[in-house]
């Protein structure tokens, strides 16, 4: 097993190396000299340009630049952004990544939880009118052009109804002279959500293993949630936290809706193939109720591909959020990336794309681990194959 893990890690390192090298090659393909605009400025002494050239390492031969670049990646030094000069690229990424992660994680979890319920409902009523209607709607949701849906939501909820803010991350008036930083409040909120999630998982496990009675689980959960809410209600930064949550509402709901389509369709198509399996027939033959057969047997068999898609959707931090964040002016990694790309900010854009690579690769490793843990067949087949 340790051997498999080591081999996987080496392979992932290779993927990242390949990505970093491709990025380097594309940057070098760019026509022109990055310091040319400095040379065109007549008020700038040549010595200053020379200094800039040396700072960017452009006086080195190509392989020297390549080694410097790879060394920088390994030590976490991604250089200085041009677009948001003079901030460090690592600093910008550390600030923006949590915002994207929070948005994507909350929306993906909500969408898949709903998607499993909707998908199993339509699969069970396969080829009925209800199934046709709902599946048609889901296909529309899955194929609708995302920015279009996002703008539609903004128009309805922010302009026509005026319930929610039309994007942005916070209200500047509220945050003027704030004693806390935006990132610290945001991270505290994220930590709270993670705490509640861990609590929910523990409660579910305790229920499944029958370690606690249903009543005890409910009492403990309610106390915990009330405690967390109470702490926030007393906290001096509560207004700021409320402002952030208020702005996060519309993007989160929209991303959930957009993810729901593919999630439910996948659940449906996975479950359509499990409804006529022998397992389900046997469950029926044992005289189990229809609902029990559906939820405990047919749906459970359909879960593995859905779990895989869930993990890959979490990696949608990469592609899914690109347009989406920009439409909602959500200052996450996607907005930063598109802005950097449009502005031709090579250090920031390449730094973010390597970050994307790390996120994708990490998610893939986690997914493989999860499948290995969940599906015993994978373990035996691995052994048999090698």
């Amino acid at each position: 097993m340790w051997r498999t893990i080591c081999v996987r890690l080496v392979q992932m390192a290779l993927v990242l190396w390949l990505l970093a090298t491709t990025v380097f090659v594309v940057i070098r393909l760019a026509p022109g000299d990055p310091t040319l605009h400095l040379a065109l400025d007549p008020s700038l002494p040549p010595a200053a340009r020379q200094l800039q050239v040396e700072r960017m390492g452009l006086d080195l031969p190509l392989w020297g630049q390549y080694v410097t670049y790879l060394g920088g990646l390994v030590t976490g030094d991604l250089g200085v952004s041009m677009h948001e000069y003079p901030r460090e690229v690592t600093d910008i990424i550390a600030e923006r990544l949590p915002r994207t992660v929070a948005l994507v994680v909350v929306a993906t979890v909500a969408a898949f939880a709903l998607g499993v319920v909707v998908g199993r409902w339509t699969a069970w009523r396969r080829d009925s009118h209800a199934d046709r209607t709902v599946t048609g709607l889901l296909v529309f949701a899955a194929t609708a052009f995302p920015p279009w849906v996002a703008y539609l939501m903004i128009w309805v909820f922010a302009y026509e109804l005026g319930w929610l803010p039309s994007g942005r991350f916070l209200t500047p008036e509220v945050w003027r002279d704030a004693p806390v930083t935006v990132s610290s409040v945001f991270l505290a909120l994220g930590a709270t959500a993670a705490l509640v999630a861990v609590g929910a998982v523990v409660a579910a496990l305790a229920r499944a293993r029958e370690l606690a009675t249903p009543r005890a689980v409910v009492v403990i959960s309610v106390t915990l949630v009330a405690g967390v809410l109470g702490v926030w209600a007393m906290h001096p930064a509560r207004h700021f936290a409320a402002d952030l949550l208020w702005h996060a509402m519309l993007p989160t709901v929209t991303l959930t809706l957009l993810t729901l389509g593919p999630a439910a369709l996948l659940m449906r198509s996975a479950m359509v193939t499990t409804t006529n399996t022998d397992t389900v027939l046997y469950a029926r033959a044992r005289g189990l109720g229809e609902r029990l057969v559906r939820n405990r047997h047919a749906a459970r068999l359909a879960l593995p591909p859905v779990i895989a898609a869930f993990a890959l959707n979490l990696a949608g931090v990469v592609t899914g959020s690109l347009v989406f964040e920009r439409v909602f002016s959500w200052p996450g990694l996607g907005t930063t990336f598109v802005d950097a790309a449009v502005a031709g900010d090579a250090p920031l854009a390449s730094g973010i794309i390597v970050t994307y690579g790390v996120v994708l690769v990490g998610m893939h490793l986690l997914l493989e681990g999860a499948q290995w843990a969940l599906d015993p067949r994978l373990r035996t087949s691995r052994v048999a194959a090698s």
Partner: protein
Amino acid sequence: MGAGPASADVTRGCVMNPRVSADLWRGRWVAFSRDRLAVSGVAIIVAFALGALLHPLLLATVWDPAIYHPVTGNDPQPVARTVVDTITDRDTQIDVARARLRHDPQAQIGDVLDVPRQPAPPSLTHPLGTDPRGRDVLSQLLFGARTAFALGAVAAVTTVVLGTGLAAVAAVRGGWLAALLLRLADYVLLLPAIPFVIFASAIVDVSIIALGVVLGITSGLGPTAIVLHAQARTIVVQPFVDAARLAGGGTWPVVRRHVMPHLAPVALLSMMTTVALAIGAEAILSLFGLVETSMSWGVMLGVADAGGYFADGIAAWWLLVPAGGAVTLLAGASYLVGRGFDTLVDPRLRSVAVER
């Protein structure tokens, strides 16, 4: 294959009986044509293709290129507006500052100016109205279909050629070559494709064709190759493949005559998924002006976005609904057709009504 009689002898053993082949495809067509959603997907694609073909004809006959050209055309459709201090009626008035800046520096309050109406709502001359630069939206929509088909075709061909090639070679040859190719597919699967195109577009110009090739490569060498390889492996162990080999068929003829026909539905499914992906990706990239193309559905949305018409909701619907709807419809139709192909491979997916 070779022209000499010797090579014809060798390949004769692995020629699929034409009647069997025809029956295979006829059976597939019957099953496919019973899938109503897939057929409506085909109908949508055909409708867009007809529109794309119609466009140059219209431009050559009834549409004057000076007015109707999707990129350089312009129809100002002037409207008489009174110059006023504060606007009370948007349709007949224009405020004095704007009139002086944009139309006539000497404009006085009370003057009547001929102001171009851009964007103009649908009318008889422009069935879908004009865009913020006075260009006909219907003409752009039809021209955009051509761009979408060009992109889709390039992406589809690249995907299918690379995907089937890699999968078939890996499945038939096996050994170190298969291991190498499958590791390559793993790598490509993990590369962030769309961010990479955005990144590349910041540095070099990305054309529609280049975009199609890049998306085709990332799909063909990645997910498509993996799915097709899984399918190909179940085919190469079938008795008829052994029979063809025993009859003296070489690797390539066996792949072409016996493996490929059974790989086709899955390949078509992957192809349609890639087409849907490519159309959506192009629209997203063009929305931000990251693709070098004169006109496409994404560019239409980008123009509306740059003018701030998205925030107006449905007030300027003809700028948003045709282009957004076309992207959604064509991508959705590709998905439905692909799903129809999927049903052919996996009989469990066929609806109960068909089996009866």
